[in-house]
């Protein structure tokens, strides 16, 4: 059987960083499984920068300030011990990647350049023009090549295997599918790191994330009893292109862009008079939706929007600092931001929730031998709302910690048995045969689109208990249809229809979890806005939602948030 000491699933920033960190322990064999060529992940789409307070004399910023901003940004749902650890490591990550070759934009004195992002007291978002994610992903990929990382390209994760039961249960590897040949491959490993990215593609029609961000790892963890933490916490980025949801980065606002309604007013003055356009994402997204709901937007229904105006920045600044944004404007709206404002509306952007990580130093989950990193994981650092620039920092920090954590574990762990892997592989072989044999049934892409519409309408920026309950039932019905849906292609060779079929299955399941947790969180906190419960309720909900799958049923439980230095207070900007 194909065997490694460490198997990493996912090749975005977190997965690559984990692989390199794991290889620092001599003698361990490490492989990275990825369903695409390694550099196609969501990391490359991050534009604004990577947060990290760089230590130099005379500055006002501090690790404490970054910590506080992150806690406050999370609307106090972030775990403060984990956040303190995170900001310290984030600072190290910027210097470390600089040393590996990440080309950061520079100040005149040669230091890494940084900019302001929403929700931060200081400029601490280090950047490389407006392509920081792309640059970080590629420099991590280069560093992985340099370190000798092996890749299993075009392999889709099917499931995680568990050997033994009860207290003896350990992760024994994963079953993957070679997409090129259709072969179902059990891979034995002492440790598995899931770094598969977020699940925001469940909002298929209105999301900024790549087509591949379908929550495969979260789904696999859920199926082996690991909890999905805070699944209701999905960040809506305020500035998606009206046509399809591709992102206009926050850097556009950071550099001084205006948000304008149909009366020509900079409406953020009503919602965050001090911060204006630099208010955090959740507040800005709600402001835009409120303008639209109250008739001060342009257009109707799903086509409604407001405007983002960059013209006053001038041609040179736009070309120098925001070239990627300008390109997106040309591509999706066929206009030049130098000359015209662009139509924007919030878009599903980031998964704060994810696989329940119980140790922020090792990124271990509750299943021994299973680790998680990056957007698929939930520590929780971001709580109910992530600050701009903290996602790349998260990928670098949690990736590295997972790599170190799994290597330390793998160095002393026994090689697990093969029986569970063989059983799981047989189940998946049967699944392919059965699913692809069906000639009729619902189309998975139709189910996916219906899911996206339900979620946008009922689990979007404004939520109510009634609509969430109806959506929970409706998505349950979609799952019923999915059970007999057709794939449309019986060939084992490069069957991308089957790949997507499985992705849709994961998204339906994860949507159920999100709806369940959202329905029962009867308060408003961060990205989760309940119109029927507009206030934050610290007495009852200063705790993480934990959804598990038991015998086909979705079960909800809670765990208290770790509060250390910063006592919850009203979140105002």
């Amino acid at each position, binding site marked *: 059987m194909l065997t490694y000491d460490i198997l990493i699933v996912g090749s975005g920033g977190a997965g690559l960083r984990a692989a390199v960190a794991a290889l620092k322990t001599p003698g361990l064999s490490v492989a990275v499984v990825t369903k695409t060529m390694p550099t196609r992940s969501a990391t490359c789409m991050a534009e604004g920068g990577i947060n990290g307070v760089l230590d130099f004399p005379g500055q006002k910023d501090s690790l404490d300030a970054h910590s506080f901003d992150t806690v406050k940004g999370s609307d106090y749902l972030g775990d403060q011990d984990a956040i303190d650890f995170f900001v310290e490591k984030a600072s190290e990550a910027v210097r470390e990647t600089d040393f590996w070759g990440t080309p950061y934009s*520079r100040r005149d004195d040669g230091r890494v350049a940084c900019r302001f992002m929403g929700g931060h007291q200081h400029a601490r978002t280090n950047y490389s023009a407006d392509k920081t994610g792309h640059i970080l992903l590629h420099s991590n990929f280069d560093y992985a090549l340099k370190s000798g990382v092996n890749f299993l390209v075009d392999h889709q994760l099917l499931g995680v295997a568990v050997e033994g039961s009860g207290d003896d249960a350990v992760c024994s590897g994963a079953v993957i599918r070679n997409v090129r040949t259709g072969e179902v491959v059990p891979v034995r490993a002492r440790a598995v790191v899931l770094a598969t990215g977020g699940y925001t593609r469940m909002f298929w029609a209105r999301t900024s994330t790549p087509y591949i961000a379908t929550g495969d790892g979260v789904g696999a963890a859920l199926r082996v009893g690991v909890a999905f933490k805070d699944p209701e916490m999905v960040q809506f980025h305020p500035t998606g292109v009206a046509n399809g949801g591709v992102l206009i980065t926050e850097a556009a606002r950071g550099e001084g862009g205006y948000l304008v309604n149909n009366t020509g007013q900079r409406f953020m003055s009503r919602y965050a008079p001090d911060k204006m356009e630099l208010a955090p994402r959740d507040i800005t997204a709600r402001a835009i939706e409120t303008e639209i709901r109250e008739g001060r937007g342009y257009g109707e229904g799903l086509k409604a929007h407001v405007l983002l105006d960059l013209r006053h920045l001038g041609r040179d600044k736009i070309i120098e600092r925001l070239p990627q944004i300008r390109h997106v404007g040309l591509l999706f709206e066929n206009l030049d931001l130098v000359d015209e404002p662009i139509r924007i509306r919030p878009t599903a952007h980031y998964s704060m929730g994810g696989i329940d990580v119980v140790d922020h130093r090792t990124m271990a989950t509750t299943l021994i031998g299973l680790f998680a990193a990056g957007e698929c994981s939930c520590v929780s650092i971001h709580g109910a709302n992530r600050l701009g620039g903290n996602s790349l920092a998260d990928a670098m920090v949690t990736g590295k910690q997972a790599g170190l954590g799994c290597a330390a574990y793998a160095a002393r762990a026994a090689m697990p048995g093969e029986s569970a892997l063989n059983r799981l592989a047989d189940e998946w072989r049967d699944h392919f045969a059965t699913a692809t044999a069906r000639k009729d049934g619902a189309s998975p892409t139709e189910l996916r689109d219906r899911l996206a519409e339900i979620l946008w309408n009922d689990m979007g920026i404004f939520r109510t208990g009634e609509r969430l309950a109806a959506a929970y039932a409706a998505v349950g019905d979609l799952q019923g249809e999915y059970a007999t849906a057709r794939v449309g292609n019986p060939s084992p*060779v490069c069957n991308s229809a089957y790949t997507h079929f499985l992705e849709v299955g994961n998204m339906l399941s994860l949507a159920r979890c999100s709806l369940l947790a959202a329905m029962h969180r009867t308060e408003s906190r961060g990205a989760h806005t309940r119109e029927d419960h507009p206030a934050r309720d610290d007495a009852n909900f200063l705790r993480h939602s934990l959804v598990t799958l038991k015998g086909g049923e979705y079960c909800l439980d809670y765990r208290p948030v770790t509060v250390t230095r910063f006592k919850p207070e009203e979140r105002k900007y």
Partner: protein
Amino acid sequence: MRTITFAIDRFDGSRSWTQSFAFDHVPGMTVLACLIRIRETQDPSLNFTASCRSAICGACAVRVNGNAVLACDTMLDDLLEEWGQDTLRIAPLGNFTVISDLVVNWDEKIERLRLARPGLHARAEFSASGGCRQSPRDFQAIQKQWDCILCGACASECNKLADSRADFLEPFTFTHASRYARDSRSADSMLHVNGMLDNGLWKCVHCMECATKCPKHIQPVEDIASMRGMATAGGRTDGPGPRHAQAFRTDLENTGRLNEVKLVPRTEGLLSAATRRLPFTLRMFARGKLGVGEAIHLFFADNRPVEGIDGLRKIIRQRRRDH
């Protein structure tokens, strides 16, 4: 209603065929949006790759009428206008092994990318705990090369690769080597250049396809040229490539005109020129391409210097001082 047809090269692992898909024209669609529509409304078995749809992940490069483009970054309407027809031929990237339909195999390319020795080997004054220092100007000097999204478009149309993949690399690999070789933070530029020297640095045929096809407007051909300069400056002047370039410069400086009779012996050495190239030379004499007297004159003497040779020499000397 105007109908658009995509004639797509299909391959299922054993069988190849061309399949036409017709659909209604909607203004403002990208090529990728068209492919997705075909897969979701006509044939779920059509295979292609796509991820970010905003021209930054590099997953969706395909060939349209024989030219590599990034599908998400290319407007259908622009192609229709450019080609003046409503049928477009869609094929997988060239110079790649095809897995199925428009999906190509990146394994070999990733392994070859390792030859560029990617990853920075930073200078001794820098550290992992302190990071590096770099001037804005030095950052800008490598910024363009870092725009590479590994989409493969440059490799698809590379004429040298089409001739043989055995003694040349994908143009993006040269760009990767160049971005580390030219980084002011690098301890040893030649680490990256040497790997390229051993893998075809002097074999680029300057067809410019890589520069023309790059959706990010990178010019791998220029990266190749700059690394040739670095190799020569670093003393790696052995081999026919550097000698060929040197022969050009010698002629330019001496007379301003290319002495083609001396070019071959200068590039390959007198022995190779006299033996391997003899039949070719004789054929040139026979066809009247080259006069015997003229050849003897050019071999023992040279061309007359062109008018304004002094100015030309001045430029060459200045360039030499600049490096």
